[in-house]
């Protein structure tokens, strides 16, 4: 399959100009079909994304008041959100999480991908699939498992502590909770990121390694000069997804809340705050504004990372 594909793509490239023109004409003639194939996505996109987004933006401009009912307040909700201590604390928390957990996770994923790709492992297939398995575990189940493991009730943490005759720090306590959540997320997604990076590594042509070996490059040199540049685009993609995921943190802290209600507050992460504002506080308008700000911050940071790395990629 791979050979037939590379030959077709090279024939396409070597086609003459008239052929290219003919291709464009042909494309234009059937252009309506292109839109028809796209249309179902457009419908679900409008219903599932665009409409809620627009509705959120609309709602965020109003306030429900005891006297006068729902009134238009312009950007008042946004002003309130930007000055909201609880919201800001949640944002700082996920930012801290982002700066620590994401590099750790992606670093581990990269090392694992390089190891699996190195050809120097026994049973690489076993490691590849084994490290990936946690990805198939729902966040709720992962959080429940780790939550039980952390706890001293019947958790491993307590048992290991007993074994050594000491008490381990309370992993569900206020000092350790964020790290404990970070561990759950790292556990779930390291294998997934490893596979994305590994897939990118697999596309490096063997001849490149052979040439490097002839030039006397060692394994580390090869990893640094050939493999890292090769996985750059995949690494950027993984980073962007991790940033989005981190800002949206909800499932793990929400489950942990039932295990440690005094530690995980209702505004622990911005997303939990938006949820609790809406469903426990009935402040739908303000909740919509918080969700819009959160989405905006996420998109801007994700986009900035993408842009910066793209520019760097061109410079190199």
């Amino acid at each position: 399959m791979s050979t037939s594909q590379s030959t077709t793509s090279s024939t396409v490239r070597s086609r003459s100009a008239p052929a290219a023109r003919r291709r464009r004409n042909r494309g234009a003639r059937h252009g309506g079909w292109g839109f028809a194939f796209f249309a179902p996505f457009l419908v679900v996109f409008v219903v599932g994304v665009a409409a809620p987004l627009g509705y959120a933006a609309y709602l965020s401009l109003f306030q429900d008041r005891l006297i006068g009912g729902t009134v238009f307040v312009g950007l008042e909700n946004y002003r309130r959100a930007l000055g909201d201590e609880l919201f800001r604390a949640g944002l700082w928390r996920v930012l801290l999480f982002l700066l620590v957990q994401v590099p750790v996770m992606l670093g581990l994923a990269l090392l694992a991908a390089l190891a699996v790709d190195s050809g120097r492992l026994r049973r690489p297939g076993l490691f590849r699939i084994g490290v990936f398995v946690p990805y198939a575990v729902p966040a709720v189940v992962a959080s429940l498992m780790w939550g039980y493991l952390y706890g001293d009730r019947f958790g491993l943490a307590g048992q290991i502590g007993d074994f050594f005759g000491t008490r381990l720090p309370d992993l569900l306590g206020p000092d350790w909770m964020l790290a404990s959540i970070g561990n759950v997320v790292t556990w779930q997604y390291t294998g997934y990121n490893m596979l994305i990076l590994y897939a990118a590594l697999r596309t490096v042509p063997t001849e490149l390694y052979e040439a490097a070996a002839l030039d006397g490059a060692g394994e580390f040199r090869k990893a640094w000069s050939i493999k890292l540049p090769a996985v750059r685009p995949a690494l950027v993609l993984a980073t962007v997804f991790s940033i989005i995921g981190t800002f949206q943190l909800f499932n793990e802290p929400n489950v942990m809340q039932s295990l440690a209600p005094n530690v995980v507050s209702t505004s622990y992460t911005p997303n939990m705050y938006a949820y609790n504002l809406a469903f426990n506080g009935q402040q739908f308008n303000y909740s919509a504004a918080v969700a819009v700000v959160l989405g905006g911050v996420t998109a801007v940071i994700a986009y900035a990372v993408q842009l910066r790395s793209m520019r760097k990629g061109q410079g190199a």
Partner: protein
Amino acid sequence: MRTPTTRRRPRRGRASNALTLAMALMLGYALLPLVWLFMAATKDTASLMDSFGLWFGHGFHLFGNIGDVLSYDDGIYLRWFGNTLLYAVVGAGGAAFIATAAGYGLAKYRFRGRTALAATVLGAIAIPGTALAVPTYLLFSKAGIVDTPWAVLLPSLVSPFGVYLMRVYAAEAVPDSMLEAARIDGAGELRTFFTVSLRLLAPGFVTVLLFALVATWNNYFLPLIVLSDPKWFPLTVGLNQWNSLATGAAGSGATTTDFYPLVVTGSLLAIVPLVVAFLFLQRYWQSGLSAGSVKE
């Protein structure tokens, strides 16, 4: 540019013990909670509390626990399992199919607004799904579909990343010359798509399907918000409800430790189908994955 599916034969160097050991540690980390979960599912409440986590307790209660899980509350667990299956199969299957058609349309046809739509898809990847959850609830409650399966299914059908992946994949996997040939033979565009192109797109389709499957199977935030009737709950929401009953966080105050075996065994049953699906379909999704990761 090389085609994404190009395969490099793995180079076999001398196996390194140190490297293998390091990866074994990582594998241990990945499997440790799963081993614990399995062991915990074989225990009754008493041994759950007092036996070592990574080994069996007194007696083997796995089948008894499974029986309890399935029969509790008139078999509500099976209902949740069925709901999850419905959301996953219809939601993920629909999402993968819609994304495949859209990606194919973008890659293989030129039409007005194509560039703008492609840019929208890329932008939509960065729109965080869960930020939309609260507005989605409000909109759907206006439309009167809150607390019905539609409220979970409709948002699940949107997979911008799937469209992006399939666009890259279709550009490589379906040669223009083949579409041309089909047209000369008089085949309609739809027929060509279903009979010829779809087969060429299969590995990409399976990849998108599997990732959509994970997303819907694991979906928690959205169903938590849009559903209040337990009979429509997926497993994730149901299990956390049981957990709240076990820890006493549900508000009743009384902690019912007898729920722990239910939560643990229910969790184990919930993860089996996806793990099995991934193991059996490895060959497909691994080749599809490389397509998406090569290009930006």
